[in-house]
């Protein structure tokens, strides 16, 4: 580890959309894995990670260590997904 460049974070908040909510609701009714919601989470995670990487690059890092991913629901009825990625930007 040559240099520590500080803690960086990035977040992504995604609304699934009404129809996905309906499908997920049906899935909840009959049981089983909800691919629709899984894809939304995956997408939010990708977005957060991409942004984190870009931030790391902008401070001159070539790696991020100790990444922590937080998943939360936000919005009036908890229908939006929030992913926060936090990590330490370093040069190695």
């Amino acid at each position, binding site marked *: 580890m040559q240099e520590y460049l500080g803690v960086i974070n990035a977040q992504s908040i995604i609304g699934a*959309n009404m129809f996905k909510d309906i499908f997920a609701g049906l899935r909840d009714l009959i049981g089983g894995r909800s691919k629709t919601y899984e894809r939304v989470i995956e997408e939010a995670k990708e977005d957060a990670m991409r942004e984190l990487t870009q931030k790391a*690059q902008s401070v*001159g890092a070539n790696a991020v260590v100790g990444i922590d991913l937080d998943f939360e629901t936000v919005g009036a*009825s908890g229908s939006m997904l929030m992913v926060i990625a936090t990590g330490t930007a370093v040069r190695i």
Partner: protein
Amino acid sequence: MKTFSGQFYPSYFSPPSEATLLLSDRILSIGFHDQDGNPATQDWSIKEVQGDFLFAEQRSRFIQVHTQAEFRVAGREAFEYWEEIKAESARSWFRKKKTGNLRRTMALLSAMLLAGSLLYFFMVPWLAEQMATVVSKKTERQLGDSVFEAMQSTQTEDTMATRILNDFFNALAIETDYSIRITVVKDETVNAFALPGGQLVVYTGLLDNMEAYPELAALLSHEFVHVEKRHATRSIFRSMGSDLFITLLFGKSSGLATLVIGQANQLRTLSYSRSLEKEADLEGYRLMRERGIDPAGYDQLFKHLKDSSPSTEIPEMISSHPDTDNRMRYIREESRGQVVKEDLRLRSIFTQLKNK
């Protein structure tokens, strides 16, 4: 999304610097140090980048087509990943694996909206109608009677008029499986309605205005059709069906959406009852024609209804009955050239009512 380390050439002539590359399906982002040693980034959009593999050097190369800036990474992996991204973005919009494509989302949304409304406007009512036909006459009668009993406690009956109206209806000799029971209620309101199973309720306010027996015949035949065609039962099932459908779809949603949907639903049941009213008008008129009763009775009835309610200015769209002028018109059209004969029995019963 993948990251690589390699050499960045800011322009064709400048010396390379050690840099990092973020390769994703949306953006190519490069982190490097400028001449003064400060960290800097460059973002390239997928469209303005050409990628290839330099076989001699065994390096993957990405070129920004406008600035001719280059990024080189040792090995084939970066280039292969780049090919994947290119292939994915070249796919037609509806085959993409990823979500977030606006056109596809819109197309899917409209398709689902269409399917949903088809289901809502045709399938649900149809199912409800099917269910309504299963209901036995006995159940209908129990339903109507319980509503009637609940109503009875707050209303006073005009027993004399009730007897006369029942006589009048029997004199019309309409064949039916329902036992029609007419009740006259002392109330100034100009109104009458049919309950499922054969209970007809007429308000004295409506009877007081009547001038001739065809008008009474028109009223009773109209209400009778509501019973015979199970209009009330069908309405109940329809509104239950659509309520259930809406609850299933928007179960937990609250606030504005529910409000809007509720309003739309109400409009729809109104229009349903409008088509039922028209059916009752036309079928009722047919019963009168078979008996040679003057169709002017309908005209009179509508006129009295119109006079009594200042609400005729409500646009037809949001009113439960068809516009009165409209009703007069289609009855007049139907009754063109009809032969009218005087029914002495009905007239004498009607005179009893007026003289009581």
